[in-house]
């Protein structure tokens, strides 16, 4: 590959890894801080992507809208709709064991997928939504570096938000709930409400990532998300990086995305006729990697508690 191609690929790679980093930070609020399991990440991601797409595309007869609104409005809308979905699902499951939330999130992700696939008036069904404008394309042009810059800014914003939350008294309550729910309840805190807040906050970040993805790719369809593998990759990223540690979440996103992209060589090595087998083999490798991490180094690359020695 010549140098220019490599640079283009590098920008593409970093942009995608950045979007995954936002997802991993969202999951870190839910799982890392609060101990909640969300298997429906792809659902919230898709809600965000479609919301932003519908808000920002030019008027179309094929789907709802578009409303031709600015990029930042699209992202804000993506976060808001994901949050609304999260409130609905969270309200039902917050008082129950985390297993129920896990099961419920599978359900909500599946329903979201079916709705986006079947409700043509809303999403144009399997034909998808084309022509989603790149961020700030009118003022800054269609340079891929602009997308990378925008995504980087959002990664930093998400990191800052989650880090502020983690350090705040609010974040301490979340971690206390994770460690000892009864103790927190005895201290007079409304456990269900804190859990709900954390779940909604994390889900809105996932919606933000979905919005960024839609503007980065420019076209979304129900099949474009690799729904389950997306969710699964984010989990491996957070566990590998270090659940509970925000730098770990970002590091895990980049490391696993690099690994995942590197296994692309399997597809190249086996040739096009075995493309599906190669895909399956890649997923299998990541699945085995997750088991190895869970057994051998469950705290991840950057453990949550390393900071005990240093700052509080």
């Amino acid at each position: 590959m010549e140098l220019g191609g490599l640079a283009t690929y590098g920008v593409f790679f970093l942009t995608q890894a950045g979007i995954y980093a936002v997802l991993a930070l969202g999951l870190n609020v839910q799982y890392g801080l609060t101990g909640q399991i969300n298997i429906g990440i792809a659902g919230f991601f898709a809600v965000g992507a479609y919301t932003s797409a519908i808000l920002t595309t030019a008027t179309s007869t094929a789907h709802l809208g578009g409303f031709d609104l600015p990029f930042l409005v699209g992202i804000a809308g993506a976060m808001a709709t994901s949050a609304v979905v999260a409130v609905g699902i969270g309200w039902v499951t917050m008082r129950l064991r985390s297993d129920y939330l896990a099961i419920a999130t599978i359900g909500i992700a599946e329903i979201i997928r079916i709705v986006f696939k079947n409700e043509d008036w809303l999403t144009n069904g399997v034909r998808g939504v084309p022509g989603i404008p790149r961020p700030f394309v009118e003022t800054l042009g269609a340079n891929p570096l602009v997308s990378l810059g925008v995504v980087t800014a959002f990664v930093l914003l998400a990191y800052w938000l989650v880090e502020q939350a983690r350090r705040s008294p609010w974040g301490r309550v979340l971690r206390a709930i994770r460690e000892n729910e009864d103790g927190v309840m005895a201290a007079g805190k409304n456990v269900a409400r804190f859990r709900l807040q954390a779940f909604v906050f994390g889900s809105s970040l996932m919606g933000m990532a979905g919005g960024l993805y839609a503007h980065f790719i420019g076209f979304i369809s129900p099949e474009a998300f690799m729904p389950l593998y997306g969710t699964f990759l984010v989990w491996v990223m957070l566990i590998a990086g270090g659940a509970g540690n925000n730098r770990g979440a970002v590091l895990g996103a980049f490391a696993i995305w690099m690994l995942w992209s590197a296994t692309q060589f399997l597809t190249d090595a086996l040739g096009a006729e075995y493309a599906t087998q190669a895909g399956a083999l890649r997923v299998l490798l990541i699945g085995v990697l997750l088991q190895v991490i869970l057994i051998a180094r469950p705290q991840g690359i950057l453990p949550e508690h390393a900071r005990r020695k240093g700052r509080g």
Partner: protein
Amino acid sequence: MGTELLQLAIYGVVSGSILTLGAIGVSLIFGILRFAHFAHGDLMTLGAYFAFSMVVGLGFPVWASAPFAVAGAALAAMTIDQTVYRHLRRASPIILLISSFGIAIALRSVVQLIWGPHNQVYQSGIQLPWRIGDIVIKPDHVWIVLGAVVLVILLHLFLTRTKMGKAMRAMSDNMDLALVSGIPSERVILVTWAVGGGMAAVAGIFLGMDTRLHPVMGWSLLLPVFAAAILGGIGRPYGAIAGGMVIGLAMEMSTMVINPTYKPAVAFALMVLMLVVRPQGLFKGNP
């Protein structure tokens, strides 16, 4: 209207039978190991494909390949437990759940690698259905329901008449008491996987007979299976039977009024309703 209702009820009982076999395994595993086993749907898929290999490779009829598929899936479940889950027993159930999610994805990849990503069927060609008035029943439907009934009776006898079955119920009811009374917990756990995996294999074969084989077939059924287990009271295998039937019937009946692609949403809605009204399930489980 009347016949349509009856016809859908028959489909509902068929899919309820399949869900029941899956939900029993989920419930048993939850009762003994205290975690929601997310790879259960993919164990079903694996069992279905084991049978497929016997049918296509060796020319076995489907029913004769079932015992081998059951043994294969039971062995697979026990192997996964010994190589992965056993090392996580002391971790929190949440870690086990995440691990099983990874196992689910890995199992599906293995199925895709060995058998390919396409739809397959046990028998090509159209099965001649029986007609009773306007009602249509396929012979396969009868086998599925009968098979499920026989397995449930066998399970009942196992749980109530054998020492191992009683030990399983004891561990599910009161773990600490069971352990201090000297129940060999690791052996009980292995048997739980064998029973759960075997039942999942049969559920998978039945699903393959009823529809078709596909690497995602089991995962797509995971939500209704969990809904059935929760409805019946998770950790309660007998509740799983009631839960399976209610979910199966509701999913099929709903096609009278809504688009059939929304069937999973019906299972989901029932589950959510149950979680709001009575989280412990019909038969008081362990919420």
